[in-house]
Each structure stands twice: as C-alpha cells, then as structure tokens.
C-alpha cells in the first residue's frame, strides 16, 4: 500500500511508548500495533484526531504517501 504510517517515528520523537499512546487515545495495544504495521484498512478521523492531540503533531507527520 502506498500509504505509510510513520507512527513509530513520531513516538520516538516524542519519547513515548506504544502502550502509553494506546492508553491515552483509548484503543487497544493490539489495534495500535495493526495501525503501526500498516495492516489497517482505514483510520477513523476520531482516532487520527486523538493521535495528533496526544503526540502534538499534524496528520501529515503520521501518514505519508509514497508512490509504488
């Protein structure tokens, strides 16, 4: 899929653990892992909003389009 999720990069920049982020945004660590690995089929705006709020970043910092 040409959409790459750079959540790991943002987590490292903010020095935050996946478990903590999952707790803050209210999703399970299993679902966060699916999102990080790029296996997710879609992301809800509410989830994206919560991630951006928790990591103090923009959606573009998390999602990137790379042509195949």
């Amino acid at each position, binding site marked *: 899929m040409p959409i790459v999720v750079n959540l790991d990069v943002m987590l490292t920049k903010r020095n935050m653990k996946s478990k903590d982020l999952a707790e803050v945004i209210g999703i399970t660590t299993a679902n966060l892992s699916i999102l990080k690995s790029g296996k997710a089929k879609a*992301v809800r705006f509410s989830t994206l909003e919560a991630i951006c709020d928790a990591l103090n970043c923009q959606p573009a910092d998390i999602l990137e389009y790379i042509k195949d």
Partner: protein
Amino acid sequence: MKKIQFLNGFVLLLIILYVINFLGNAYLTWFSDFLTQFEHLYENFIFGYYTQFVGLVFSIITFIGLLSVKSGLKEIIKQGFFNSISAGKFIIGGKLFLISGLLNFIFNLILLFRSEEMLFVGEIGQSFLLMIIGFSLYIISDILQNGNLLKQENELTI
C-alpha cells in the same frame, strides 16, 4: 443465535431420522424376507428390482448435504454469523441438495413416463423444494462471505 441453535437441533434430528431410515431399510432389504412379497411390484418400474436403490443414492447425497449444513451451523454457533468456514460448508450443502433434487426430479420424470401404473407427481414437488433449499443455501453462503469481508474491514478500521 437461539434460532440457529433451534435449526441446528432440527437438522440433527433429521440426520438421526435419516440414519434410522438407512438402518431400517438395510435390515428389511438384506436381513429380512419382508420385502420379497413386494418384489413383483418392481417389475413395472424402469430399473426393475434395483429401482429402490436409485432412490437410496439420492438419499445418501441429501444426507451428506445435511451433514455439511449441520457442520456450517455449528461453526456459526462457535464463531458468529459471518465466517468463511460456514460459507464453504453451505456451498457444499447447497450443491449436494441441488444435485440430489435435480437427479430426483429427472428420475421421477422417467418413472412418471415409463411406469404407466404408478404416478409420482407429488414427489416431483419434493424435488423442486429440495432444489429451492439448495439454491437458498447458495445465496446464504454468498451473504455470509460478503458479511465476512465487511466484518474484516470493520475490524481493521482503527
């Protein structure tokens, strides 16, 4: 889910009735001389004495179809409505019911035209019913497969 459990129980009852039917017929055919008094009746049928065994083959096909449907219902009770295993089992069950119904229909038509003394119009209706059930199972399996895809997409929407 209670309705599915009820249907599962009903199919189980049908399977038990089929087994009793097979055992009873086997006993009467091979271990008893009860049917010998009716052997002259088969002279008018197209396959003679073996006409009764043709019906048995269709019964076996329907029985295997019932086993497949039972297995599919069991998976629905275990995993929920939308799962690929049940869809696969229903496709097999549907195919077997369709084949059994179609063969039964053709066989009864042949009997109808070739055996002048006996009419099987009622049994032709049963064959159509079996074919309709088989076709319905086909459609249900399609719904289950589509539902399974939607369920997977929903689960992977974070």
